[in-house]
């Protein structure tokens, strides 16, 4: 009986490791930005090319920065959630149109609805690199002082919005 004990223990430990491994999402890389100031930039708006935007403009407000693109397939999946979120007026959502062309991007918003206060246009993806974007869509929650408080990689879901984003925004607004 004893000779089976050791292999059994090894087996159980191995199963434990594999079970945990299966649940981990390898695409969720811990962001080094949490708790750090959102990188500064200046970009022109998507719809009004002559209007500039910089994160500095949002000081004093809790806001969301959502990285999207008209070529991005999972943005389609996420979009209804964003539209719904914008109806509740939880926080202003600024869109960062990542590596996209103006016309398809505008057409995409016209077709699917525009949840953004406005979108800014990151043609060559430089601001994306500054924000450590590696998988569109990505969403950042930025507080009144301009500090990144949360980053979500991949499409937002109703669950993430109601269990993470809305409570966080409320907490940040209350403080």
């Amino acid at each position, binding site marked *: 009986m004893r000779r089976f004990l050791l292999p059994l223990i090894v087996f159980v430990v191995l199963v434990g490791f594999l079970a945990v491994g299966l649940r981990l999402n390898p*695409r969720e890389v811990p962001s*080094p930005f949490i708790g750090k100031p959102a990188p500064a930039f200046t970009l022109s708006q998507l719809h009004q090319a002559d209007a500039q935007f910089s994160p500095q403009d949002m000081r004093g407000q809790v806001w969301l920065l959502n990285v999207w693109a008209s070529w991005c397939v999972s943005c389609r999946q996420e979009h209804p959630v964003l539209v719904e979120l914008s109806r509740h007026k939880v926080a202003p959502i600024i869109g960062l149109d990542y590596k996209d062309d103006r016309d398809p991007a505008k057409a995409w918003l016209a077709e699917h609805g525009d949840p953004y206060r406005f979108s800014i246009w990151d043609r060559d993806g430089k601001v994306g*690199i500054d*924000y*450590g974007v590696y998988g569109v869509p990505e969403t950042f929650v930025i507080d009144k002082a301009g500090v990144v408080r949360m980053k979500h990689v991949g499409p937002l879901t109703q669950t993430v919005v109601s269990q993470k984003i809305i409570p966080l925004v409320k907490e940040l607004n209350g403080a």
Partner: protein
Amino acid sequence: MRKLIAAALLTLGCAFAVAGEAQRVSEDPVLEAKVQSLAEVLRCLVCQNQNLADSHADLAIDLKNQVRDMLRQGRSEKEVIDYMVERYGDFVLYRPPLKTTTWLLWGGPFLLLGGGMGGLFYFLRRRKELAEAPLDDQQRTAAARLLQG
């Protein structure tokens, strides 16, 4: 003949493919070698098991261009690596740094090796003990009887 033409076309195709890959490389071979060496230690975050040098994902190409631009501006290799870590975290490094959160990653293989060696040692010693147990008189006479047939 048809096969020959097909082969010729394929060869040509390869030549074009190689030509296509060589885009946006600067003329400076020293700079390019530096970009290449940095691209080998940075991870592509889209295809996570590849480094930037091997990856053809859009992001990898952008990041390689970023590395090239920064080096061209005279930034040191360490500055480039720090820049990437600031944005993408330690995960972007193909060789993760030794920290409290990564000691198991670095030490794990040695722990396993130690465990395996210990197990092997224990097993061999036990086998030796079993093999060297001397025969008592009864076993000796039984063995002699068997040997005589």
